């Protein structure tokens, strides 16, 4: 419905978009500014959109109250391994389901798709028991193994399969005539073409791992092992009340780096998701 808009309609549209934008951007602004307010100003009335006094000690306190650097590292390295691992597992499986003919491939694809039907919340009790039996409770293994090989990676495999199905077959045929094996065709020809789909998978997977909350609180018990989402909720005083400004400082440090990366790479981000996302 793209039509050239009259100037008056244009202004109205900008106005509408700006109003709609408030709940999307104001919370981030409020988080940033409140994280540097002294605790006495944090519930000041009228609310200060810009801090009247600055107190940067909140950021130091984040590291004093919890092993926050360690927790940051935990979240970062888990997300990195999960993202990389999922890209490998899902691109291989997606490629095979899309391009290779082998007996029972459809049945096996259906079995894999069951992962979409069974959210990890359903299996959290037996998973806890399994990892308990393997001595992996309070380690990061469950947070790595389940997302890479289990239900969360199925969506990635589905996206990769949809991408490889749409890929024209001539390139592969030419490579076969040249005597390339399947693995080389996959690695040298199909995978380089799949960069946009892989990008979308990487983004989805990273955010999923980065946001994981139920699994860490079930599987992890010591603060040294905590991931960021779990750590963020732990900034409470002796009575269980939230230490708001410190909590918001920790939240800011958690949110801002990803936000900055997103703003720098937003074009690839959004287009990658839109074009490989869900076309089938």
């Amino acid at each position: 419905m793209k039509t050239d808009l009259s100037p008056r309609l244009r202004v109205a549209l900008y106005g509408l978009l700006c109003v709609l934008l408030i709940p999307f951007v104001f919370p981030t602004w409020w988080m940033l500014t409140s994280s540097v307010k002294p605790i006495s100003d944090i519930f000041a009335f009228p609310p200060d959109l810009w801090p009247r006094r600055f107190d940067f000690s909140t950021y130091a306190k984040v590291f004093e109250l919890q092993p926050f650097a360690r927790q940051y590292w935990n979240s970062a390295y888990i997300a990195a391994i999960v993202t990389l691992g999922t890209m490998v597992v899902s691109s291989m499986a997606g490629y095979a389901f899309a391009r290779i003919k082998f007996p029972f491939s459809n049945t096996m694809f259906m079995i894999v798709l069951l992962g979409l039907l069974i959210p990890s919340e359903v299996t959290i009790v037996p998973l806890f028991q399994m990892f308990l039996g393997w001595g992996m409770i309070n380690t990061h293994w469950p947070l790595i193994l389940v997302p890479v090989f289990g239900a969360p990676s199925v969506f990635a495999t589905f996206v990769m399969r949809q991408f490889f199905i749409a890929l024209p077959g001539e390139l592969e045929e030419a490579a076969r005539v040249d005597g390339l094996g399947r693995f080389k065709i996959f690695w040298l020809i199909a995978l380089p073409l799949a960069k946009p789909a892989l990008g979308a998978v990487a983004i989805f997977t990273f955010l999923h791992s980065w946001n994981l909350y139920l699994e860490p609180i079930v599987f992890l018990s010591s603060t040294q092992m905590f991931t960021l989402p779990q750590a963020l909720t732990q900034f409470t005083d002796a009575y269980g009340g939230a230490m708001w400004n410190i909590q918001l400082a920790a939240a800011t440090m958690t949110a801002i780096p990803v936000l900055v990366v997103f703003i720098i790479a937003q074009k690839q981000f959004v287009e990658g998701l839109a074009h490989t996302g869900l076309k089938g």
Partner: protein
Amino acid sequence: MSLMTETPPRKRPFWTMARRDAAAGYLFIAPQLIGIIAFVLIPLCLVFYYSLHEWNVLANTFNFVGAANYQMLLADRALPQVLLSSAIFSVGLVVLNMSLALLLAVLLDQKLKGITVFRTLFFSPVVVSLVAWTIVWSFLLQNNGGINGMLAMIGVEGPNWLRNPTTAMISVIVVQVFKNVGLNMILFLAALQGVPKELYEAARVDGAGHFKQFRRITLPMISPTILLTSIITIVGSLQVFAQIAVLTQGGPGMTTTVLVYYLYQQAFQFHFFGYGSTLSILLFVIVAVLTFVQWQMRKRIVFYEN
């Protein structure tokens, strides 16, 4: 592949092209397939097995009780409230999310300078850490917090958002919608941009107005995307946990205790693993039925499929 070199000469080779391909196929899917068996199918069987047992981890009891947990499920006085809360949350979330996503997508599909800046900003909460986002909203929604502060400036006395049964549920839904609506918005936007322009031109020649064009062309053409996003949004809405845990802890009373939160409480706070497993089976059945129903509905509501 090294397997090729072992082919004995002259005899018809065992490793024909088709066989080599099949072997490669199995190798390629092996990690995913084994993972699904180990971390999805076996746990699913186990959860059913557990659900037939009375199992208290603290008391260290594990006894076969048959269908007793399922009878307990039917008799559970709290469960109707939990299911009602889940239903209100899911319906509210899906309706709000889909309509806001569609509205934003249509607005962002207009020819305007700087529209990508708006697109980026509407999408930005998607990349903000879920718990960080929820904590900020929790802070904003406190009785003496930012939102009531702003309301007071214009002379309105706001409710205690997270402590009042009605507003607590609304808050949880709205916080989640603003967090994730950007994702559906982008998918809708891509779908809108894929609608052939000629269709609109033809409709305009026939004298169809904007609203009619939207109803008769846009909606049918993007219906596959609407169906797919609605399935994902509904299944996702049943998995909500962190938001509830941070914002309301299921309260006030049990008004925001959705099924996953109740399951977590029963299994990991009260240590009833058997009953927790029974609730897991219930969650599984609900997800399966909803997905199946929507999949069946696609024949009726989806206008075309590629």
